[in-house]
């Protein structure tokens, strides 16, 4: 459940956040603010999915199975 809540954050940030940041100034890393906002969420999405991957038990299960198969 926690994992899905984490994964929902980018949806909220990108879909619901954009109306509030629809402006040019201040520039973020040289980009218009609204573009910088979207880029920030793209980067955050990667980080969030990395955390999800770490926490997700199903990845460990598959790994454990794989090890058992090995001679």
């Amino acid at each position, binding site marked *: 459940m926690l994992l899905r809540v984490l994964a929902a954050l980018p949806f909220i940030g990108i879909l619901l956040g*954009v109306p509030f940041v629809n402006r040019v100034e201040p520039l973020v890393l040289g980009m218009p603010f609204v573009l910088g906002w979207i880029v920030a969420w793209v980067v955050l999405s990667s980080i969030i999915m990395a955390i999800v991957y770490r926490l997700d038990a199903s990845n460990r299960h598959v*790994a454990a199975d794989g090890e058992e198969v090995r001679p």
Partner: protein
Amino acid sequence: MSALVIIAAITLFALFLGVRAKHGHDMSLEQWTVGGRSFGTAFVFLLMAGEIYTTFTFLGGSGFAYGKGAPVYYILAYGTLAYILSYWMLPPIWRYAKQHRLVSQPHFFSRKYESPALGTLVALVGVAALIPYLVLQLKGLGIIVATASYGAISSTAAIWIGAAVVTVYVIVSGVRGSAWNSVVKDLLILAIVLFLGIYLPLHYYGGLGEMFHAIDAARPGFLTFPAKGSSVTWFQSTVLLTALGFFMWPHTFGSIFTARDERIFRRNAMVLPLYQLILLFVFFVGFAATLKVPGLKGGDIDLSLFRLSLQTFDPWFVGVIGAAGILTALVPGSMILTSASTLLANDVYRGMVNRNATDATVANLARILVPVVALVAVAFTLHGGETIVALLLMGYSFVTQLFPAVICSLFPRNRATKQGAFCGIVAGVAVVAITTTMHLTIGQLMPFLPDALKDVNIGFVALAVNIVVFIIVSAMTQSGRVEHTHASAH
């Protein structure tokens, strides 16, 4: 002349690599269509990322930034959300496909819902969406070669040559050819796009911030979403809709089946969003062009990247850019071609005409259909005119109609019925066809809505109609044993 040599070299190299990809594999149906389900993280990654870097993004992404400004940001957003969804959505699809040895997207539908008729319908919808997409790649190819060769090769000749190259390597190697070529494509495009996106703003404006300040001063409002039209509501609805439709393209869906194990998708879900950021540099090129090569209108906005490159670089470098552009057309083109032929052979022929056809027959038929599909696409490219633009707009909305049926089928107890799925898809596709051909918008259909809602992507109407029909028909056709759960059936 040097540009021409480079373009010719990369085309031959793509042909060589594509044909060589067959090496050491007997091309059975499963090998040809899904690479024997043996691809590791890197290949699956590239096949899925291949969706992002097509001629549409290379020419269209920069052209969109050049012509429309802020609305281009949506391209960056929808893929990210689609990759997040993929973490949970793709592994169960893959498991089912492996268990039932599926080779195509309609195959998935016909097994899940135990209905070859549904499979055939999905195949027809898929082909209707894929052909315009292939036409778009060929059109882009024509533009790129004609421009980068300084007119030495006509657009028509380029389209014929390009179509011939993909046809040959798809017949020989199927999806393996696409996989190997996407390695070269992605490396080349990565280098070129990064270079152009950093160099052009520096060279012409002195830096990224300076460039955006200059654009904002010259064209106020260009860098933010406008109040009407491509507004924030348009952005939200379009991003959500395209994120849902992302993996519903038959060739993208098919590339799920190529994976060796399911963790590949989860791993890719963390890297693919970052990989998308390269698109940012494509936008920068388009923005750099707005003030430097102004005046391109209509379809010509897609030329902005090349116009600016022509006036900035030596011919040999324009050749290198052209070569990268050719690969952005050839690789997705080959995936589409493999997919469309498989759909026709496996799901239309085997699904409807001859249910007892063997894998070997289907594999042969699929190969025979490759040049046929390619020829149809070339004909459309050269003589399509306006119709093809309309078809193309419909493509994405068409495949999005498959989303509800896929999601329902992933639940452990799927209450949806084949009749429900069938009618829902037909209804959704019909609404898309009507609204697109008549150029309707939500504002025209429902003028009483507040302004903000008028910009909601019209695709949502089709999806809503689809879901309603899907639920009602499924509820009506439930089998007796779930009688008592009618009320909550969906």
